[in-house]
């Protein structure tokens, strides 16, 4: 028996058949229950754990259909339109679901019906473990059910019961007008939804991939090599689908369904639409290399699915003699970068993305390659061009697009953030003659500056001070980029920062 706290009282949240047989009800106070049956075993309910379990179960139900929705805290809705034939018909599917859940230790009730509302009611109020309600049989099935089967609020249910309406059957043929007036629109909507007079969509937990291919295995596989082989096979099938649609994949998810119900998902993304099975296999190989230790096959995988989570129009290779080579090169380059991303993560592969700004750190920004490729083409030229020969003369445009920098020298490395240094200057407005950075003292032999950089007040929330940048060289020839923030105004001392390193 599980308890939960409600209005300062421990109440029964759920219980097993044995407790039910004792005549206890959900909602009864624990103290009362204990008084009646002192040897009850009571455990605290764990709603978070329950939710996690339900999510895992929903993952597993991906087995049967990609459209799985979580329904409340104790139900799952599966849209099996077009999937039933894979399992030998609706009845066979229903039996399979119940049998396999029972094998995992779940005492599940299942209802299969033409509408989500009807299926919901059938699972909960038919009194049988599994029931299949054929199209047209909704009214008949609903008639003996209690009002709770309509998914209406408890209060509305109580109101209906107070006027003697206890079964759904009593409502089926009642005039609609007075019903709506007295009990609200929801009641009638629910009724129509259950009967199939009004469409109702379920909201799947995971986005449904536009394309997916899968292989069910009679003999579960657990070797990485087998998975790789199978992946290649699936990728070949997927290519045919992609070719038919004139598309390539941008994002792929490989779902591995373990025999015991655990599902592992591995995703890769590509920087250009991809079709080649070999290339897809390569990307996943990098993922496997990282995951090898954490991917536990357990008793083996029984279902492997490769889904294209996102696709994009595929540029057919140009027939042009020169263009063809460029496209191939470009493809190879993208694949190379995609492999690096698959192995190291998206954040580890970056491109400089200089911004139009005169604040040094804004000019220094980097963007992950993934975002860099996807950003809307600025002036239509922002794509990677190999060897300077782009298709469509993009190379020239790329050249022009380069942001124009300030004419003053700029460092080769810019520190992640300016670092405070202790500096001493001869004259208040002048360069420092020595400074201490990371505990070492540097004596300045020469300096250039100041170069004033004003804050961009239109971008910043808080007004920051102007910076005076100096380029200095120390006794050993090291060159640094320092700046002073603030000025000597009697009381406050300006602060010095080291921001960059010159070669």
């Amino acid at each position, binding site marked *: 028996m599980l308890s939960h706290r409600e209005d300062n009282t421990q109440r029964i949240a759920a219980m097993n058949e044995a407790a039910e047989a004792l005549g206890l009800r959900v909602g009864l106070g624990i103290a009362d229950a204990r008084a009646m049956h002192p040897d009850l075993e009571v455990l605290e309910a764990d709603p978070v754990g329950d939710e996690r379990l339900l999510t895992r179960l929903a993952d597993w139900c991906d087995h049967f259909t990609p459209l799985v929705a979580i329904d409340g805290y104790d139900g799952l809705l599966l849209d099996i339109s077009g999937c039933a034939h894979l399992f030998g018909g609706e009845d066979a599917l229903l039996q399979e679901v119940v049998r396999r859940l029972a094998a995992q230790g779940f005492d599940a009730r299942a209802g299969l019906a033409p509408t989500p509302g009807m299926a919901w009611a059938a699972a909960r109020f038919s009194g049988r473990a599994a029931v299949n309600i054929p199209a047209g049989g909704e009214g008949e099935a609903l008639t003996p059910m209690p009002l709770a089967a309509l998914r209406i609020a408890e209060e509305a249910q109580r109101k209906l019961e107070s006027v003697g309406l206890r079964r759904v059957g009593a409502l089926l043929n009642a005039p609609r007008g007075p019903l709506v007036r007295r009990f609200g629109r929801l009641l009638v909507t629910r009724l129509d939804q259950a009967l199939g007079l009004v469409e109702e969509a379920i909201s799947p937990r995971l986005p449904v991939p536009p394309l997916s291919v899968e292989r069910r295995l009679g003999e579960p596989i657990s070797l990485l090599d087998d998975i790789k082989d199978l992946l290649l096979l699936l990728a070949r099938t997927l290519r045919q689908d992609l070719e038919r649609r004139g598309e390539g994949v941008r994002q792929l998810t490989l779902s591995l369904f373990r025999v015991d119900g655990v599902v592992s998902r591995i995703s890769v993304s590509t920087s250009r639409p991809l079709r080649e099975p070999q290339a897809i296999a390569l990307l996943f190989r990098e993922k496997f290399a990282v995951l090898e230790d954490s991917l536990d096959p357990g008793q083996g995988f029984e279902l492997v699915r490769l889904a294209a989570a996102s696709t994009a129009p595929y540029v057919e290779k140009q027939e042009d003699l020169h263009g063809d080579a460029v496209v191939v*090169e470009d493809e*190879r*380059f993208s694949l*190379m*970068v995609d*492999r*690096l991303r698959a*192995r*190291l993560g998206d954040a*580890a*592969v*970056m*491109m*400089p*993305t*200089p911004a139009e700004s005169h604040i*040094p750190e804004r*000019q*220094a920004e980097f963007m992950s*390659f993934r975002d860099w490729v996807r950003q809307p083409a600025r002036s239509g030229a*922002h794509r*990677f*061009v*190999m*060897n*300077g020969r782009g298709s469509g003369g993009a*190379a020239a445009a*790329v*050249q022009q697009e*380069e*942001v124009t*920098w*300030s004419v003053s*020298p*700029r*460092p*080769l*490395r*810019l*520190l*992640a953030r300016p670092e405070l240094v202790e500096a001493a200057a001869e004259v208040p407005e002048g360069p420092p003659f020595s400074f201490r950075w990371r505990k*070492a*003292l540097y*004596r300045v*032999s*020469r*300096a*250039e500056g100041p170069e004033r950089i004003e804050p961009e007040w239109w971008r910043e929330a808080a007004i920051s001070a102007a910076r005076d940048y100096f*380029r*200095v*060289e120390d*006794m*050993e*020839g*090291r*060159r640094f980029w320092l700046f002073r923030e603030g000025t000597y105004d009697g009381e406050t001392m300006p602060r010095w920062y080291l921001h*960059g*390193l*010159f*070669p």
Partner: protein
Amino acid sequence: MARTATAQEQLFALRQQIARIEGTQPERLEGGRAGGEEVEKADDSAGMLVRRNHPAGLFPLGVVELDEALGGGLPRAALIEIIGRQTRDAAVAAGFSLALAAIARKGSGSQSPLLWIGLSNFFFETGLPYAPGFTRLFGITSDRLLLVHPKRIEDALWVAEEAAIQNQFGAILLELQGNPAKLTLTATRRLSHRARAAGYPLFLIRHAGEEEPTAASTRFQVSSAASTLRETIAGTVPRSIGPPAFAVTLTRSRTGKEGTFVLEWNSHDLTFEERQPVRGKPLQLDTIHAADTGNLAAASGNGSHPASQARNGLAAGRQKAG
């Protein structure tokens, strides 16, 4: 095949050891037996031991004496090791490598992108490449640089190797710090082999690293050199900072020659110029402000980095001599 590979591995290690004891280059040991090398060439089609074989040829650095010491220039397809003295010199060692890459690119006319690999914590410590800087200094525009920063050194080595195999870049820069245990002789041999197959240079930059046996064909030790004064049409600007200057020591080359050079980088023409102790106009102008640099150079005797005084003194001495 496996057995011969092991045997070659042992042979290579032995050569390295003998070379270390004799204080010479392993290549020179091989070079002594010209006939033997021919046999090796025939045996080993992969070219593992055929060090003379640089398919993409050499590219001269445009500095007469340095090119001479290098035997005509830097090999275009090879592992080139660049050792920075201290981590605080991170911009210098990287800058020198980029300069070499820029010269190689200029020579081949290739616009292929550059791959810059470094560990994320190192980039955090020493700063990321700064686009306005590398564009101006080395003519590498920001759409020509791919930056990869793995967390582990194994991954960094993997990226370098894979990138070389795929042959998609104009040059690869691999930045590491110190003498990591993971960078074994075998690892550098693999990199060297990949670079040779790829046909472009792979720069192994080791900040604050000690010299140790690696398979690099060429090794430089780089630190910053005091710059000359900035020149304008109106003359030199007092106390100004001129073009980037590098104090470069060649410690390993195919010819076995060594030497120290002070090189100035001309970011406009993408060329090196050697700073001679005695030269024409620029250095004479320099001496006008000798009091400036001279005094300060003398003061470096009190500096906090005694280890570097020798080299610094050399640079300052050369200026004074001018």
